[in-house]
């Protein structure tokens, strides 16, 4: 691990399997304290194209990338099941890690990633951009200033278009819509309210598509402060939906209701040539802020947030939801101890 003294943090993106890599690449290019050096991808066609697009070097094998001296940190956007091997390889090479959510697909993998980063004294941040979204910050501020009194009950949803590809192959993604979309809102609730999810009941199925992965999910959770939360995780937006989906959180409180639509798209665009209806929002995505938080934590050698444990706690809820749906009963969530 090299010392970073007044120079940009040099970053490698490991894999463009996850489409969020585009948002992170743009944020890294725009951040004066970061320097995107290379893109590693074992999909040569995709990796070379992305490297050319962003004007950086292409490296076929991520293992060659993590050991290089001109790299300080990596951003991992591989298939979920590969987060573990890439994180551990980077940590052992002394590189800081920003890993796409969900942290992993099993508790053991997540614990191994957290341990590797701790043992090698590198940062581990999990990519939860929603808690950096400006509207979500507004929601937290409204709750904190008592705009609705004590929160009593919360109805939330994170519906989206189906990402297809490896996302719908459970052996690569660890599930389907539930593992893909549970973690965003759970992380946001934990951050916003300082709580854990204690129990989950879930209805999960494959109803829209013909693949094996689940595309439809409804979670009924109970938080450690007693507040119940519902969460719809479904890939229920049609492929030609004017917007990818959204994060909506309605908080019913003692003296009022807060209704958040974090990615509301206010502008409607209809083009004669092109898609008949597109919607464009103006809210901050959270990507640049989330990337900057990681870069500054690396520069200042400070704690990352959201860290590996945050990633683990969110993933545990998704895994318990699958268990609940199978058992058709609510499941208490066992929170694995982090050394």
């Amino acid at each position, binding site marked *: 691990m090299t010392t970073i003294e007044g120079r940009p943090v040099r970053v490698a993106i490991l894999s463009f399997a996850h489409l969020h890599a585009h948002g992170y690449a743009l944020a890294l290019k725009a951040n004066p304290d970061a320097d995107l050096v290379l893109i590693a991808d074992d999909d040569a066609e995709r990796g070379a194209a992305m490297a050319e697009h962003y004007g950086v070097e292409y490296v076929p094998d991520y293992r060659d990338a993590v050991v290089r001296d001109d790299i300080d940190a990596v951003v991992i956007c591989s298939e979920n099941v590969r987060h573990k091997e890439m994180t551990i390889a980077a940590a052992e090479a002394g590189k800081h890690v920003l890993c796409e959510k969900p942290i992993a697909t099993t508790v053991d993998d997540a614990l191994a990633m957290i341990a590797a980063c701790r043992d090698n004294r590198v940062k581990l941040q999990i990519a939860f951009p929603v808690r950096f979204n400006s509207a979500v910050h507004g929601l937290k501020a409204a709750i904190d200033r008592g705009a609705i009194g004590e929160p009593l009950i919360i109805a939330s949803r994170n519906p989206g278009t189906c990402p297809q590809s490896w996302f719908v192959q459970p052996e690569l993604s660890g599930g389907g819509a539930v593992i893909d979309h549970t973690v965003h809102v759970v992380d946001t609730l934990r951050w916003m309210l300082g709580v854990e999810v204690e129990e989950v009941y879930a209805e999960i199925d494959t109803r829209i598509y013909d693949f094996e992965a689940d595309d439809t999910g409804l979670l009924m959770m109970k938080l450690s402060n007693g507040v*119940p939360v519902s969460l719809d995780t479904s890939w*229920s937006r049609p492929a030609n939906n004017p917007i990818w989906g959204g994060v909506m959180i309605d908080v019913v409180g003692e003296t009022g209701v807060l209704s958040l639509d974090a990615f509301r798209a206010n502008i409607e665009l209809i083009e004669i040539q092109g898609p008949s209806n597109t919607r464009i929002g103006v809210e901050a995505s959270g990507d640049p802020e989330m990337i900057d938080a990681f870069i500054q934590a690396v520069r200042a050698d400070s704690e990352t947030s959201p860290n590996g444990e945050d990633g683990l706690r969110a993933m545990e809820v998704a895994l318990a939801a699958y268990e609940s749906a199978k058992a058709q009963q609510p499941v208490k969530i066992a929170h694995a101890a982090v050394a």
Partner: protein
Amino acid sequence: MSSPTPSSPSAQTHPVPASPAQLRDRPVRFAVVGTGGMGGHHARNLAAMPDVELTWLVDIDLPRAQALAAEIGGTPTASMEEAFAADNVDAVLIALPTFLHRDATVLAAQHGKHVFCEKPIARTVEDGEAMVAACEAAGVTFMVGHVVRFFPEYERMKEILDAGKLGRIATIRASRTNPPVMERSPWFADVEKNGGVVLDLMIHEIDTLRWLFGDVERVFAHGLSYLPIHEKRDYTMASIRFRSGAIAHVEASWAHSTHRTSIEVAGQYGLATYSSEQAATLIVEPTEGIDWNAPGGIRVPARHYLRPGVVAPHLKEVQHFVACLKTGEPVRVNGEEATKALAVANAVLDSMRTGVPVFFNEDGTVRASAAAAATTATATA
């Protein structure tokens, strides 16, 4: 020589309900039982209908019935028996507090009167079944006022779904919010007697979703109805799994500031959404009476959201009931359907209380669950 009265002496001992043949060419004569909010609304609608004669207004609060009679006609009385025994009543519209529905419906049926009863049909499934049986035995038509089935958007939604436009249904979100009504009428907060927000509001969505998507397999719910806060704010959200496999999230609230309903259906081939907030075709925005110095900022008069030309659903459902009496056609919402919706609503309450899901058998009865029994036992002990 006088023409025979419709209710002959023999009909008084064995009351015969008015038949379509009798009702086709004359007004249907109504007694309205309960002249509070909904009863008064229905009574005014009935009084204005050309093929209806409003003959009796029944209320235990006699001055209230008298005041309404002075406005729209009809004979006021505090006695259901008096009105039901009269020979100028063909049908009864019941708009009483929920727990009184059974006795009023059974009594009306025994007098050979057709019955339109406000929703929910009753507080318990047992009561609902007794009402259905009494109406069947008496040969009277029985309809329950699940008015959402008469909203044009929900009717159109059913056409879209029945045409298979969305294919296999994946998820449904249905919501109904209202201001905390218990601030005005505290009896709404009595969950034991009236079922709280689930039996008053969520029953609308439950009936509508059963109409659109069929029978229910299991329910699980969270909410405020059994917490002390429910006397000020009530809110419930339920996960409803249909036998078809579709998964619904249903929300009912007495914790918002305005009335709103919405439904979203996602399936294999697309997405259909409706929100009452976008339903208005005409908005009236008054600019007189703006208070520029109200505490906390400017206060403006309320806007009015209108839909000119759309028949008010509460009128439409009663028109439908009258038409069915005249034609003999089946009513859109019968007692069996309303009882099934009630069974699901009560399962929502039970799940909320016990913390475990409630499962239904194929015949619509609740499946005894070991976990539920254990939790209930603990809660009772």
